[in-house]
């Protein structure tokens, strides 16, 4: 913020200062209006190139949403904005009605309840599978509480459940780096679950997976929706068809089309930029 703007913000009586209405730590998103994610007019440019161009997108609570689009459509940049990695030039992003995502850094966004899975599986390779889940487990993130933290029986049981769910119970004491590509993807989804997020952002979950693994991942994600909201970015159309209820098509940093898969597939604009390729 430049100095004049800063001064203006102090003299502006119509709004309360940011630090006054900052949500308390651990605040849950308020979804009484049925919407969990509000992305409005977000613009991000890199050296003049508009990665996102006034992007507006809403995600309902409990929804499983797929986002597709050709390379460079702005899918990953959108995730970066939501998770606090990239600051947009303009626009608003709210988590529920009460949490302003643009006022939070990456750990803040994670603590507010948004979990992110990266395109390339990123797990802690030198930690065991069990330790990966333990680190991701929802709970205190401050230095001192973490220093003195001990795993309660309840927490241990929760980790065991998640290990079963993602099918890695047998590998619990192995280093995460020794897992296969598909197993790493599942471990990362398991870590997301341990974070107990309200909203999961999942970037290309089935890239490089065998057909069996894809099927299993689809099953896992469908089971998650309902309890949590899930946004999946994916290239694999077969996979999108198998899980999606609503699909959003991004193109050149904007929403090109949005609706059920059948409608989308027959939309001539979509066919032109993406499916027709």
């Amino acid at each position, binding site marked *: 913020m430049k100095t004049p703007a800063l001064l203006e913000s102090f003299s502006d009586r119509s709004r309360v200062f940011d630090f006054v209405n900052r949500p308390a730590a651990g605040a849950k998103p308020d979804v009484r209006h049925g919407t969990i994610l509000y992305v409005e007019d977000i613009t991000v440019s890199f050296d003049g190139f508009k990665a996102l161009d006034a992007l507006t997108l809403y995600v309902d609570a409990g929804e499983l949403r797929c986002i597709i689009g050709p390379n460079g459509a702005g899918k990953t940049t959108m995730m970066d904005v939501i*998770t606090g990695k990239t600051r947009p030039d303009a626009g608003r992003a709210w988590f529920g009605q009460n949490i302003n995502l643009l006022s939070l*850094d*990456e*750990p803040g966004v*994670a*603590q507010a309840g948004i979990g*992110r899975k*990266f395109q390339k599986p*990123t*797990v*802690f*390779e*030198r*930690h*065991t599978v*069990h*330790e990966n889940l*333990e*680190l*991701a487990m929802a709970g205190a*993130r*401050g*230095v001192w509480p*973490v*220093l*003195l*933290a*001990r*795993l309660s029986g309840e927490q*241990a049981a929760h980790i065991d459940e998640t290990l079963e769910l993602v099918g890695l119970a047998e590998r619990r*004491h192995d*280093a995460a780096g020794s897992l296969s590509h598909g197993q790493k993807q599942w471990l990362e989804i398991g*870590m997301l679950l341990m*974070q107990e997020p309200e909203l999961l952002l999942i970037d290309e979950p089935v890239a490089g997976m065998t057909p069996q693994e894809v099927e299993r991942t689809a099953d896992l994600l469908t089971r998650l929706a309902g309890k949590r909201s899930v946004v999946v970015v994916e290239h694999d159309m077969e996979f999108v068809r198998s899980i999606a209820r609503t699909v959003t098509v991004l193109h050149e940093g904007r929403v090109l089309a949005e609706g059920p898969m059948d409608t989308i597939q027959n939309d001539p604009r979509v066919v032109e930029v993406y499916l027709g390729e």
Partner: protein
Amino acid sequence: MRHSNHGPVLTRMLGDTGSLIFVVVLIALTVAVPLCNVYLPEASALHVTDYTVALIGKYLTYALLAVAIDLIWGYCGILSLGHTAFFGLGGYAMGMYLMRQIGDRGVYGNPVLPDFMVFLDWEHLPWYWHGMDLFPFAMAMVVLVPGLLALVFGWLAFRSRVTGVYFAIITQAMTYALMLAFFRNEMGFGGNNGLTDFKDILGYELSADGIRNALFVASGVGLLLGFLIARFIVTSRLGRVLEAIRDAESRTRFTGYRVAYYKLWIFTVSAMLAGVAGALYVPQVGIINPSEFSPIASIEAVVWVAVGGRGTLYGAALGAGAVNFAKTWLTGAYPEIWPYALGILFVAVTLFLPKGIVGLVSQLRRRMRRKEPS
């Protein structure tokens, strides 16, 4: 192989063989060396000379510094090439206490001002020298001054996400700046001569046999406590967060951990341990001067850790002992060779022993086990 251990704290800390052996050997050394010095006749083969007691005592303080460096480098990936700055500050705090203990026995006989201040025609004690005649206050400064510097320096660096080689370079600059500052007489720390000619500590004469052994034991206990504190940290969940930061910093952030706070915390703890090491070092060598802040000294300390094997704590302590033993021997036999030997050692370890001596030992053990048909 590694696995989470959620049992009682002591089994958690000393659960791995290397750490247990280290603690047992360290306790044995701390007890045996003074006993062999005092009770065995000089003719005995097992007699430890006064010189050797002071020498091993010095190695123990170096080992504590190495543990402090390994705590941040081995576990959190923070390479500090300025850690002897914290060691030096702890040393200076101890040196100031020892200077004030000299009282009117200095050359100029001034009861309050140390000799170098009388020599500079100073009339009053600078404000930061007040209270340093009180042992508890001086000991508090031994940890607080390095801790505070680390806190401020770390806050500026980690908040701006300065990492890797850039961080290493600014730590070099930090220690170099401190060296230049302490060289100046106006700073009030004795300029290039530093602080020396100490007489006694807590009312006991420093040159007495009993005190030499007491300082040795204090160094052994200091290393033991420092090691146990470090082990407690690295075997806790916090330790696993630190390793997560080392291996995948960005992922750790997206998991909800404020990476900068964690780095700042461990960097400060490490600086405090280094300060204690410096304070134990000074009464045993009898002098502290700005050369302790020299950039090369910090690099040397990092080499100890690399040689011993980083990420094990005991490996760092072992490396400090081994490299300094070699240094003592080489600088005695072929003084001009040492700098080359140190450089070659570092290159050789980096190329052939990425996990240091500790890594070599465990590799040999594994090979032997494979040969035995089981």
